[in-house]
C-alpha cells in the first residue's frame, strides 16, 4: 500500500515518531537484519540541535498507567556531528530520511535548516516546536503568531518538505496548525507528548523525574491524539502525520480515518523494536478485509 507524502513515495503509511527509534543504536544491537526488515516507511531522526546536548539528569522515565512519562531532554551530538558521523550511516537505510530539528531562536532554526538543505541524503525536515520539557516554558508551537513568524522565516531557506510537529500543550491546536499551513509548511505532525508529572514514590513532595516534569505517551494518550488529529485535519489542507498511542493496525486505521496521511509509531517501538512491521501488516489486513478506502491515505 504505497503512499504519496509531500512528494515522497513511501512503501506504506507507518513511520516512527521522532526520538522513539535510534537506527544507529538498533543496528549495533540487531546487525544488518535491521536494514533487511526496516520497520518504517521513512525514518524520522531524534531532534538535532545546533550545539551538542547532554540531556536531562536521570531518572528520565516513569511507567504510568498504560503509558510512560519521559524527560529525556533532547540529548544529541549537535548539528556538525550529526552531519558528519550519523548521516552517512543513516543514508544506508532503505527508506527516506526525515531530520527533526529544534532551535530556541529563529536564527538557530534558520542555521539548522540551511545546513540540512545542502544534504541530498535528507528527504524532509521536521521542526520540533513542541518539546515540553526544555527550558523556559514558552513553546514556539503554543502560539499561532509566534509559529507563523518562525515558519515564514524558514520557508524560503529550503526546497525540502517542511513538517511542523505540533504540541498538544496549547489552547487551540487547530489554530496553530492553520498558522503553520498559512506560513508555508508542507505538513504537520501530532501529537507530541502531553506535559506530565510523577511524584516520587517514597519522598513526599519530591518529583520522580530528574527534570521534575516530562511528557506522557503510550496508549494513555491515544484518545486525545485522535481528537486532535481529527480537529486539525478538518481545518487544514496539507497532510497530517498522526501519532499518539498507536499499538496496532486497528489504531493506525483510526488515525487514518481521523484524517492522517501517515501514522507514526512511538512508545510501542520500546515494547517491540519491530512494532512498525507488525502494525503496517495489520493495517494491510484491515484494508484487505474491510471497507477502508485506501485512497483516503493518498495525501496531497
Amino acid at each position, binding site marked *: 500500500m504505497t503512499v504519496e507524502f509531500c512528494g515522497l513515495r513511501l512503501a506504506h503509511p507507518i513511520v516512527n515518531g521522532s*526520538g522513539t527509534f535510534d537506527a544507529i*543504536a538498533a543496528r549495533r544491537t540487531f546487525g544488518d537484519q535491521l536494514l533487511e526488515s526496516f520497520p518504517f516507511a521513512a525514518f524520522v531522526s531524534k531532534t538535532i540541535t545546533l550545539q551538542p546536548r*547532554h540531556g536531562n539528569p536521570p531518572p*528520565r*522515565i516513569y511507567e504510568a498507567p*498504560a503509558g*510512560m512519562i519521559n524527560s529525556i531532554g533532547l540529548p544529541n551530538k549537535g548539528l556538525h556531528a550529526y552531519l558528519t558521523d550519523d548521516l552517512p550511516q543513516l543514508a544506508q537505510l532503505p527508506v527516506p530520511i526525515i531530520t527533526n530539528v529544534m532551535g530556541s531562536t529563529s536564527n538557530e532554526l534558520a542555521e539548522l535548516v540551511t545546513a540540512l538543505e545542502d544534504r541530498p541524503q535528507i528527504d524532509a525536515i521536521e521542526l520540533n516546536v513542541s518539546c515540553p520539557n526544555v527550558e523556559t516554558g514558552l513553546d514556539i508551537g503554543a502560539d499561532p503568531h509566534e509559529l507563523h513568524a518562525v515558519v515564514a522565516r524558514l520557508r524560503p531557506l529550503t526546497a525540502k518538505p517542511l513538517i511542523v510537529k505540533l504540541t498538544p500543550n496549547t489552547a487551540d491546536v487547530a489554530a496553530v496548525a492553520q498558522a503553520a499551513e498559512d506560513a508555508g509548511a508542507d505538513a504537520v505532525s501530532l501529537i507530541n507528548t502531553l506535559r506530565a508529572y510523577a511524584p516520587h514514590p517514597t519522598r513526599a513532595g519530591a518529583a520522580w523525574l530528574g527534570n521534575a516534569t516530562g511528557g506522557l505517551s503510550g496508549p494513555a494518550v491515544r484518545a486525545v491524539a485522535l481528537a486532535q488529529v481529527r480537529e486539525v485535519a478538518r481545518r487544514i489542507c496539507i497532510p497530517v502525520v498522526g501519532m499518539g498511542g498507536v499499538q496496532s493496525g486497528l489504531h493506525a486505521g483510526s488515525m487514518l480515518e481521523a484524517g492522517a496521511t501517515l501514522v507514526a509509531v512511538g512508545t510501542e517501538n520500546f515494547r517491540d*523494536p519491530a512494532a512498525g512491521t507488525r502494525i503496517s501488516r495489520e493495517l494491510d489486513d484491515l484494508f484487505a478485509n474491510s471497507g477502508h478506502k485506501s485512497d483516503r491515505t493518498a495525501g496531497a
Partner: protein
Amino acid sequence: MGLSEPRTLAPFGRRTLSVTERREVGAYVVLAADDPAGPLPRAGQFYMLAAAERWGGREDERPFLPRAFSVLRARERAAGEERAADEERAADEERAADEERAADEERAAGEERAAGEERAAGEERAAGGSAGGECGVALEFMLEAVGPGTARLAELQPGDGLHVTGPLGIGFPDPHDGRRALLCGGGVGTAPLAIWQDELLARGEPAPTLLGFRDAAHAPGATLLQNARVATDDGSHGHHGLVTDLLAAELDAGDDVVVYACGPPPMLEAVRALCEERAVPSRLALESGMACGYGACFGCVVKLRGGGYLRLCVDGPVLDGELLAEVPAH
C-alpha cells in the same frame, strides 16, 4: 568498545518463547524458556522480558513496559532435545486437538493448522540465525517479585508465553594483563555472574566467588553458583556483614585480579570505590529502569566521571568502573 566487544547480536524484533520451567530458590524465582530462534548470549548481556498475556492491569494499571534481566544461564540445545521437545509439543497438540474435536471438530483443525504454521515459521527463523546453535538455546532468568512487572513474571508457569527481545548490550570482557577473575555479587545481581562462572569454569579458569544476601530467605540464591562464599546482612548464612568485607579480605590476599560485580547500587558503589582505592580493575554490571533496551529511548543513562551520560542498554550494562565517579543510587 569496537570490534572486540563481547556482544552477540539479537534477532530483530520481539519474539514469544514458551516457559519450560519455574522453580523457587529461596525468595527468588528462576524461569527457564526455550529460545529456538535465539543465539547464545554472552555473559553479562540482558533481555527485555514481558509476559505474553496479562501484561498490565495490576496496581496503577501496570506493568506496561518490558523489564530488563541479565541472563542467569544459557546453553545450546542439542538436536535430540529439539526433537523431543517438538514431539512433546506435537503430542500435546494432538491431545488438545482430540479433546477439542469432541467439542468442536472444525475449530480444532484450524488451531492445529495455525500451530503447524507457527512451528514452520520458527524453524525457518532458527535456520536463518547464524550465531546460535542449530536448535536454539535454553535460557534462564532469575527474578524477585518486587513490583507489578516482576510479580507478573514470577507467576508464569510452564507453557506460558514470554515475550523477549535480546540478547542486548555488552557483556563481560575477558580478564586482561594476566589478571585472574574474581566474582562479587549481591541479591538478584548474582544472575550474570552465574553464566560468567559457567564460562570461566568451562575454560578451566575457576574464579573466587563472593555473594551477599539480605537474609536467610534470600541466601539460597548462592546455590545458583558453585563454591560461593556468602555474606548476609542478618548473619543467618556465612559472614555476618557485607560482601565487600569479603572482597576487601580477598584483595588483601592478592590483588592481581579483575573484579566482576553486579548487585544493588550501594553494593556496586562500595565495590567500585574499593577497587579504585586498590587500583584493581572492575567490570560492573549496572541496572537501570529501561523502556526499550536497544538504544531508542535514552532513558537508562548513567553519568560519566568525565561528564555527560552513557546509555546502559547499548554501551553497557557492563561498564569499566573507571568510567564512573560513582554508581548512581537509582
